[in-house]
């Protein structure tokens, strides 16, 4: 441990440099806050998911589900009547929006009153007391709904009131008949995202006809015989799964998204670490003399080392605590953003919770301390090099740095090489990708001193900046005090390269999506059935549409999401002809051959699907799909770029689909119209003529594109927040460095002032130096930022999502980054130059 008096000496420095101490704390706090916020967001999503999906399974051990998320009621009847199986419950489920709850999305659960009590621990109350018996009675009321008591009280919904339910564009008024409650805590929470009706009411609202969503089963553990018997009566595309397995496969969908966010937050912590490193380094170098004296007085190396580490750990603790508080605050916002994105992209979260546990806080605290420790490690190691002499010459440090330059640079190159090698490893483990990225960043940081020296010397020589003043003095200061300036430059470089990298990545993404939308959304008007998982419109609509003037062509589409099996979540699309202009990642032959194979039973799969299922470009790929006629194999004849389905998409010819799924319903129609007719008037016409008879949603080309871009932008809001954070940290970092560098040179500046340097000249010198630091950081950040972007686009996104994006580098990112770094450093120079300009020369000369 460190002795008390030593600590006192240590902290007297920090008391004198309160501003810098404060900035250290902010550095740690910001880094920790981002990690906490994202961590909370992710685990809140997990918890919300659990509440939205899993907790209402109750005592269910197995579920019967169809690959198209639909089962004919017939199956249920066979199970109950022919097989005599008792412990089963038919379920109808879907999502509706409720106007009285601010259009909140709720899960609508249609259940059978008599089967329920075996399954879920839900009590009902219509008049007097909550009981399970009451629930049965309440569910016997057709056309009414039940909601959780909690929710009803919060939203002020009395029984007898009508709620307005929206399903697609369809609106229905349903009376609240009674309240629900559960003694089981998890179920109780889950109830707040659910409304319950009887089966037929749910079928009516969700437009499901005589179909149900699934059948819940209770089968004793190990009773394989019963499962086998049940399995025998099921049609081929209907299977028995456990609820855990089912929710797992849904949950997996968003996991790489969340992992990616986590990694991004660690990137923020990394930037924060540089800030700490920067500040601690200055705190050590500024105390070289004091530490030298202490050493000569008999303080051991170990004690000096411990002192520096100990100080930082104390700051780490305070900073992390601040970070925790800030993180929980930020977390409110991120939870909202992340669950919004997850709902947009993956699955509906009908229950949203804010999940903070002491585990998050302990984890983040540990991370903050660890980050502080590692950031302080190098400065602390440097501190023990300090020889026990009274006046350590600055030159010996600069000389040391100069001698170390080749070694540092070689070390940097080695790190870059290791990083690249790690990145090349073909693996889906993101750990490798982020590890490689870290190596690249550290490698680049080690090259900074050498490159700064080269560039500054080149400028000095090329422009014959002979003058020792202004730019010349500033340039010399930067190159000849590399032990200081390189630290600032590399810290700023890293922060700015994160800004560039993330910026280019988002831009590339956006560009790719916009380009893809342009080629994919080709029709003028889209009409789709209202159910997201299983859209259906009656076929007769085709004839009716044909009567509407202005419509040129109809492209008929059948689509659904696979609900079970290996490909759960994957969209299947059957089309009668191609309207989309696909961008092929791979295709089996020229266009004619390709479509011939397609009509003959081949399928196209999206890039993500291919990636997830380990398909490469080449012949011989095929997939097995569970059809109404059993398991069938389809050759994959093309892989196309697609951003619509995160789970992947399979496209087949509608004749092929009809043949194997025995289904001639349609899900949607894409319409092209005569160019002379305005889109709006055709849409209005369709609504007028057909809305009463069919249930569909109608959108124009423009609105679909806009909605897609909106989803995209929402998804990247967090990323942009990260950019802003990086900019903030960058600013604090340079401010801190410039402040420290100026403080360290107080006496030097006193001499300059005494020799006749005016305040304006001093100001110019400081600003020039700040500008050079900013300029060099900005210049170095350009290649590093581009490299980061490249890694993010081609390696991290590719490996976490399976998307191949066009790499779009727009020059405005570079200009913006250069601008940010120069502006940040110039702004950062204002206060220090003002402060040292104001200092009395006599006082400056009295310091050492």
């Amino acid at each position, binding site marked *: 441990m460190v002795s008390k008096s030593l600590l006192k000496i240590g902290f007297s420095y920090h008391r004198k440099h309160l501003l810098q101490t404060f900035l250290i704390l902010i550095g740690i706090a910001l880094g920790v806050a981002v990690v906490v916020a994202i961590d909370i967001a992710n685990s809140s999503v997990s918890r919300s998911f659990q509440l939205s999906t899993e907790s209402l399974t109750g005592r269910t051990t197995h579920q019967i589900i169809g690959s198209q998320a639909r089962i004919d009621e017939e199956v249920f009847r066979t199970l109950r009547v022919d097989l005599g199986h008792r412990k089963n419950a038919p379920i109808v489920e879907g999502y509706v929006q409720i106007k009285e709850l601010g259009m909140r999305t709720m899960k609508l659960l249609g259940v059978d009153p008599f089967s329920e009590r075996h399954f879920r621990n839900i009590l009902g109350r219509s008049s007097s007391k909550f009981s399970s018996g009451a629930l049965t009675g309440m569910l016997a009321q057709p056309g009414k709904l039940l909601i959780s008591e909690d929710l009803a009280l919060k939203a002020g919904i009395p029984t007898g009131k009508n709620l307005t339910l929206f399903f697609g564009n369809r609106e229905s008024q349903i009376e609240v008949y009674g309240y629900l409650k559960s003694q089981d805590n998890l179920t109780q929470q889950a109830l707040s995202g659910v409304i319950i009706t009887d089966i037929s009411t749910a079928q009516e609202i969700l437009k499901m006809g005589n179909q149900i969503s699934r059948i819940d089963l209770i089968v004793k553990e190990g009773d394989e015989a019963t499962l086998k018997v049940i399995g025998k009566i099921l049609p081929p595309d209907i299977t028995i799964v456990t609820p855990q397995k089912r929710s797992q496969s849904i949950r997996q969908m968003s996991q790489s998204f969340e992992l990616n966010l986590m990694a991004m937050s660690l990137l923020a912590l990394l930037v924060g670490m540089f800030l700490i490193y920067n500040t601690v380094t200055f705190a050590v170098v500024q105390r070289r003399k004091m530490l030298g004296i202490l050493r000569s007085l008999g303080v051991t190396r170990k004690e000096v080392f411990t002192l520096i580490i100990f100080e930082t750990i104390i700051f780490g603790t305070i900073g992390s605590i601040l970070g925790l508080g800030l993180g929980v605050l930020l977390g409110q916002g991120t939870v909202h953003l992340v669950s919004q994105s997850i709902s947009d992209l993956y699955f509906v979260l009908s229950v949203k919770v804010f999940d903070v546990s002491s585990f998050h806080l302990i984890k983040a605290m540990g991370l903050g301390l660890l980050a502080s420790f590692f950031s302080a490690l190098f400065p602390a190691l440097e501190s023990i090099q300090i020889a026990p002499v009274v006046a350590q*010459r600055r030159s010996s440090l600069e000389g040391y740095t100069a001698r170390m330059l080749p070694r540092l640079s070689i070390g940097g190159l080695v790190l870059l090489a290791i990083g690249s090698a790690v990145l090349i490893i073909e693996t889906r483990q993101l750990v490798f990708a982020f590890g490689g990225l870290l190596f690249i960043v550290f490698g680049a940081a080690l090259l900074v001193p050498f490159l700064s020296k080269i560039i500054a010397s080149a400028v000095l020589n090329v422009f014959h900046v*002979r003058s020792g003043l202004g730019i010349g003095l500033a340039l*010399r200061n930067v190159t*000849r005090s590399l032990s200081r300036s390189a630290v600032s430059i590399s810290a700023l470089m890293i922060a700015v390269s994160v800004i560039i990298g993330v910026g280019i990545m988002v831009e590339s993404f956006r560009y790719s999506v916009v380009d893809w939308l342009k080629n994919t959304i080709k029709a003028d008007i889209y009409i789709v059935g209202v159910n997201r998982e299983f859209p259906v419109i009656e076929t007769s609509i085709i004839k009716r549409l044909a009567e509407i003037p202005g419509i040129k062509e109809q492209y008929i589409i059948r689509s659904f999401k696979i609900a079970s099996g290996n490909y759960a979540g994957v969209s299947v699309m059957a089309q009668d002809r191609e309207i989309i202009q696909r961008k092929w990642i791979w295709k089996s032959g020229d266009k004619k051959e390709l479509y011939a194979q397609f009509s003959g039973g081949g399928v196209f799969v999206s890039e993500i699907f291919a990636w997830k299922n380990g398909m490469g470009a080449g012949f011989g790929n095929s997939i097995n799909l569970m059809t109404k006629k059993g398991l069938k194999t389809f050759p994959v004849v093309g892989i196309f770029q697609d951003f619509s389905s995160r789970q992947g998409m399979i496209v087949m010819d509608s004749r092929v689909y009809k043949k194997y799924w025995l289904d001639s319903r349609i899900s949607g129609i894409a319409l092209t119209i005569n160019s002379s007719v305005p889109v709006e008037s055709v849409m209005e016409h369709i609504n007028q003529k057909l809305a009463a008879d069919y249930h569909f949603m109608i959108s124009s080309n423009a609105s679909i594109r806009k909605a897609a871009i909106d989803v995209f932008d929402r998804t990247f809001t967090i990323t942009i927040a990260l950019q802003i954070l990086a900019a903030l940290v960058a600013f604090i970092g340079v401010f801190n460095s410039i402040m420290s560098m100026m403080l360290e040179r107080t006496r030097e500046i006193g*001499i*300059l*002032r*005494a020799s*006749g340097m005016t305040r304006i000249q001093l100001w110019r010198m400081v600003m020039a130096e700040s500008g050079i630091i900013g300029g060099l950081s900005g210049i170095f950040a350009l290649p590093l930022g581009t490299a980061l972007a490249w890694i993010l686009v081609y390696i991290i996104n590719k490996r976490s999502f399976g998307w191949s994006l066009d790499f779009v580098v727009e020059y405005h990112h570079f200009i913006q980054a250069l601008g940010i770094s120069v502006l940040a450093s110039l702004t950062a120079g204002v206060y220090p130059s003002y402060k040292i300009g104001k200092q009395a020369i006599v006082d400056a*000369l009295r310091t050492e």
Partner: protein
Amino acid sequence: MRIELREVSKSYLEGGKKHNIFSDLTVKFTSGCFSVLLGKSGSGKSTLLNLIGGIDIPDSGNVYVGNENLSQMSDYNRTLFRRRKLGFIFQFFNLIPTLTVMENTLLIRELDGPVDKEQRDIARQILVEVGLEERMNAMPDNLSGGEQQRVAIARALAYDPPIILADEPTGNLDHETGRSVLEMMARLIREKGKTLIIATHSEEAIAFADDIYRIESGLIKPVSDLT
């Protein structure tokens, strides 16, 4: 050149208490002479030099240097005055560590704008005179203490100011080196006809001095008898 302090008072606030260094001090230094200020540590030698040099201002009273009243000048004008009329030599860390010996020597001149070859030659000549022509491109930190002080002398002289103020220029040097630095300083300053005021507590400087003053309890007295 006239150097005169009239009824100058200077005090510092220390821990809320006023600590008088000088009250109503009046003194005049002879132009073109080598004056030595003696006094115990804390007696106010540096304070006096700083007042003359215009890097510190008196609480009251006037400081005249040449025709100027420093006490009434703006900070900007005082700065220009220092640049053109004064050369400073301090006890230690006189030099800008990031500039070479040559650059340090040219520094003050450069504050007034870009330098031409002629001025470079002047600086080189002075470095020759202080015996450092070989070390022109060295960095200050690679020089010995004595060499560093010689650069400081060269710098103080390079822009040809009429007055040189030296605050313990040999304070950090060993006896031998200190002596040779003093010798050099005295020789160059006499050759060039400058006024030099040097504050020191080493009696070493007396050997070179024209005038000697001692500061004691806020008063300054010429010393004629040195025994």
